[in-house]
């Protein structure tokens, strides 16, 4: 459709195409030109070929040499004279005049800045006041610390009592009955201890991967000391009475070694032992909220008993590693926030926020019940397991509980001395559009109140949640806050909605074909995505531009960006592997190859 003068100015360097028939002699204005926003669609549909097409700035004011029909790209042959664009007119200043205009002196004497200009046009001077005299860096302020003490486990076995003895974890025999009894909807629960030699074992769909960790004393999640077991994770799997996968809508059931993308923040690492529960819930509850929650709660009976055992470990010599996370305010640095969109559609999509124990259940509130409104947490709370994830659909792009425990973007931003990470804003993704906009407007208002310079918006999954993902970015962008979006998109998850603030986007895709291939955590946010997002946000906050991506998904863009970043930082980045490093499962062969 025809464009306004303002739009024409904005798009002065975009191709000039007639929107409608225009007759010979017509002096072209913006009203004769088609909106460049739809050119991609037109080119795709074969309606338009932009080869040799002049730019909008070159044709406005020119006269048509012949009558042309709608969607005619304007070329040198169709108009009488190419109009000088503003940029060109600056270039065309004769050299002698240019040297005169360069004759500018600005000496500072006796504290007075004097500027004298002999001759010139379009002079623009910006002087930051106040910052000239003081060059002292504002001091950073330590807000809080989190210490993680790691205890190594090399063997998991069953025995009469749940206990940790050296590097051996024993789980009480018969604990299954307690777990089953704790939940009305749980009809059966089986524990498998999967050691590396058993990775080629069939498993029902993986509902969650959880770290086994506990707080010391009365420490709250996100502060103080956390004890965490290395070499072992909890894994929740299950079906309903009829054998239907919990959250069957794209699930990761199959041989474990063919369906887990090792080493992703949310996935198990190679060599780890899985304490895998296989929970059978009441028939038909697999796609409703209480069903999956019951599977998680029953599993947590076991985890909790291990936590209690871990609390009793008295020998500090068993600590194999200690990590300390410090959260600073860095006044004077660019203030940024990480907005994490988490699932909140109800049914199987929920997250338990802020439990008493890392990735626990007790004390937590489901974000669906909180109305999915934004909840501000500290980066250390995220890294200490303040999110117990109840996500199912689309295993490749969903964030497991363990993901938050090792969240790469939070870690990178937390440790970046150039950024002042003020917090992590968790916002649920409701089912209904009206609610999506309700929560995204709160996100915008919160960012405005925090006066942040920049924001990251991340999401998990794709499709429906992209509506609020886009709206979050819009709400932040419209407040003149720099914003970078991170999501799985590629081919299958291509954005269905968009707005003018979605200009800085990072694709979390790792899969070869750009698809959700049901390999656990394959397309989730990794270190290589975090650093690209940070580089983009820094570029945006400093006013430099990021080139628009090509219209069609092209994995080379990511490669180039990673290369650019490692060239600048001098730190080589090896992209993580994808599903091609795994043995090919039958399902993948049939469905995705």
């Amino acid at each position, binding site marked *: *459709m025809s464009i306004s003068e303002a739009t024409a100015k904005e798009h002065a360097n975009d191709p000039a195409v007639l*929107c*409608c*028939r225009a*007759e010979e002699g017509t002096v072209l204005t913006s009203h004769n030109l088609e909106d460049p926003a*739809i050119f991609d*669609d037109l080119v795709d549909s074969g309606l338009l070929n932009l080869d040799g097409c002049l730019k909008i700035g070159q044709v406005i004011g020119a006269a048509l040499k012949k009558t042309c*029909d*709608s*969607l005619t790209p304007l070329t040198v042959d169709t108009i009488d004279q190419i109009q000088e664009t503003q940029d060109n007119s600056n270039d065309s200043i004769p050299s002698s005049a240019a040297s005169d205009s360069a004759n500018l002196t600005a000496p500072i004497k006796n504290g007075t800045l004097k500027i004298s200009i002999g001759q010139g046009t379009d002079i623009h001077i910006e002087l930051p006041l106040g910052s000239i005299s003081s060059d002292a860096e504002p001091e950073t302020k330590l807000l809080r610390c989190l210490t993680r003490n790691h205890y190594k486990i090399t063997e998991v076995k069953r025995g009469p009592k749940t206990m940790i003895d050296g590097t051996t974890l024993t789980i009480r025999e018969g604990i299954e009955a307690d777990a089953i009894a704790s939940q009305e909807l749980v009809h059966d629960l089986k524990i498998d201890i999967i050691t590396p030699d058993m990775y080629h074992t069939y498993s029902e769909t993986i509902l969650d991967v959880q770290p086994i960790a506990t707080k010391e004393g009365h420490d709250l999640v996100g502060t103080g000391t956390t004890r965490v077991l290395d070499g072992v994770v909890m894994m929740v799997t299950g079906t309903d009475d009829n054998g239907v996968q919990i959250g069957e809508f794209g699930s990761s059931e199959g041989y474990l070694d063919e369906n887990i993308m090792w080493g992703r923040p949310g996935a198990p690492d190679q060599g780890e032992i899985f304490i895998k529960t296989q929970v059978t819930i009441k028939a038909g509850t697999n796609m409703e909220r209480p069903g999956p929650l019951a599977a998680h709660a029953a599993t947590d009976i076991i985890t909790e008993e291990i936590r209690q055992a871990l609390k009793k470990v008295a020998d500090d010599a068993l600590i194999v590693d200690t990590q300390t996370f410090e959260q600073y305010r860095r006044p004077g640095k660019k203030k940024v926030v990480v907005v994490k969109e988490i699932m909140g559609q109800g049914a199987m999509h929920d997250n338990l926020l802020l439990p008493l124990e890392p990735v626990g259940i007790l004390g937590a509130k489901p974000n669906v019940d909180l109305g999915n409104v934004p909840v501000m947490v500290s980066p250390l709370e995220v890294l200490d397991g303040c999110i117990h994830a109840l996500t199912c659909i689309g295993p490749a792009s969903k964030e497991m509980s363990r993901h938050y425990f090792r969240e790469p973007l939070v870690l990178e931003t937390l440790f970046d001395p150039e950024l002042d990470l003020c917090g992590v804003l968790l916002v649920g993704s409701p089912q209904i559009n009206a609610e999506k906009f309700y929560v995204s407007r709160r996100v915008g208002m919160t960012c405005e109140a925090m006066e942040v310079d920049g924001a990251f918006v991340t999401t998990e999954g794709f499709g429906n949640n992209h509506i609020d993902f886009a709206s979050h970015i819009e709400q932040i962008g419209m407040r003149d806050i720099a914003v970078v979006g991170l999501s799985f998109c590629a081919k299958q998850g291509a954005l269905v909605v968009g707005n003018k603030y979605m200009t800085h986007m990072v694709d979390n895709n790792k899969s070869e074909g750009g698809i959700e291939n049901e390999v656990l955590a394959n397309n989730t946010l990794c270190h290589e995505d975090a650093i690209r997002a940070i580089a983009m946000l820094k570029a945006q906050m400093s006013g430099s531009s990021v080139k628009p991506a090509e219209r069609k998904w092209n994995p080379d863009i990511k490669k180039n960006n990673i290369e650019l970043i490692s060239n600048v930082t001098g730190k080589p980045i090896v992209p993580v592997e994808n599903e091609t490093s795994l043995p090919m499962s039958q399902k993948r062969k049939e469905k995705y190859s």
Partner: protein
Amino acid sequence: MTYVQFCHFLYASVYFILSLTKRMGAAKTLVVFTVFNTDAGYSHIPGGFDSHMLPPKKKEFCPMKYNILLKQHIGVPCKAVAAAGNPVLPGTLIATPSGLGAPIHSSVKGTVCEITDTSIIIDGEASDAFLPLKETDAYQLLGDAGIVGMGGAGFPTAVKCSVDLKGGYVLVNAAECEPLLEHNMKQIREQTAKTIAGLKLVMQLCHAGQGVFAIKAKHHDEIATLNKYLKKEEHISIHLLPDLYPMGEERAVVREVLGTLLAPTELPSAADAIVMNVETLLRIAEAVYEKRPCISKHVSVAGKLKGGTHTRVFMDVPLGTTAGSLIERAGGIDGDYGEIIMGGPFTGHAVTLDTPVTKTTGGIIVTAPLEDLNGAKLGLLLCACGGNETRMKDLAAKMNGEVVCIQKCKQAMDIKGTLKCENPGNCPGQAQKCLNFKKEGCTDILIGNCSDCTNTVMGSAPKLGLNVHHQTDHIFDTVGLERMRYLKQSKMVSEEPSTYHIEQTVNNGILTIDIKEGKDIHIDLPL
């Protein structure tokens, strides 16, 4: 002296007398009237005022029921003042306005047989004689005669003429824009003097300085006739319009003639102008000079008729005549038909055979059966130029299309429930709309767009695999016109040369030239 020579003599007299009356005031208008009777098509009333009640020379209309609607115009319906059983003559007042509106008179001689909520039904027969209006003041006569805009808008003319144009323009809408309608052109050819007299009356009433006939350049005969009559009319000129749809939209006329594009919410008075349909001018002349109330309408009838699909024009059809009886007079429907459309192909709507003619009826078109789309997924492109949403949905249903997507032209503004085009006849681009139709899964689209927009739709829709249907297709097919698709002629028309009034003065050796307005001005000064 031959007849033609006699007419020329009379024309000369008209001008002479008109110029005299102008100086002497309205009192002398009676003299003018007798001369006006020489206009062809008006000669059946012999003599002067006293002969009104004489029976007509030839009887075209047989005794039948006439259904005179109480709503003949925009505004609120009138209230009946006649009662069942009352005898009426053409010109008997039968309904009065109960708000913004205009009185309604009987169009025939006969008896009121029934009064319903919506109409007055008269059992009667047409008669060319009529009961004259009593008022003498010209402005009062416009109101008493019940004249409303006869181009289709139906705005009460007396209200429109109450504006003081302070030397501005009366623009005569002679675009006759809708295809197949021909009654306006016939009127210009045959009732020229009376039409011009009507224009001059309006110019007087509204204090206009200039009158302009806006007419399509293709109407050579009508333009020649007008030119002949306008030779000595300093303040009346002709503006030529291209043969496009829509040129007759009120704001399009203002834009084409005066170069001012009005906002959809603005009235022509914002450009110091009013726009009058040619037939309205005729009825004004009749009301003032003959004291004839507005009781008849010129109507074009075309389509699937016995004897050919060409247009038949019926002059002075009594209001209340049914579409069916006019179709019968035109030869009758030829076999199967699709729709009876009242109005033009673009803005008309489907009616039944017993729908009556009103003060705003222009055309009656019988169409061939509509195309069957066999349940195709259909997109509707709504705009101000074509049918409204109800009409488009009506057509979609009749064509057996499943409406899956409705888009509205970017330039169509919703003004109090009616779509108005921001710049009639100048396309704002439609490629995005076509892409949207495609995305919504349409295989076919139904449009009612103007020439320019239709051309733009054709620039993208067929390449996207969308079958384009225009709401005028079944009508144009019926009469053998090429379907509305691509725009082949220019939107620009070269105007006939006119003289500009330029003031120039030389004072103390300095030449001053003042040009109020103009285009392509060349000044050569030998120095």
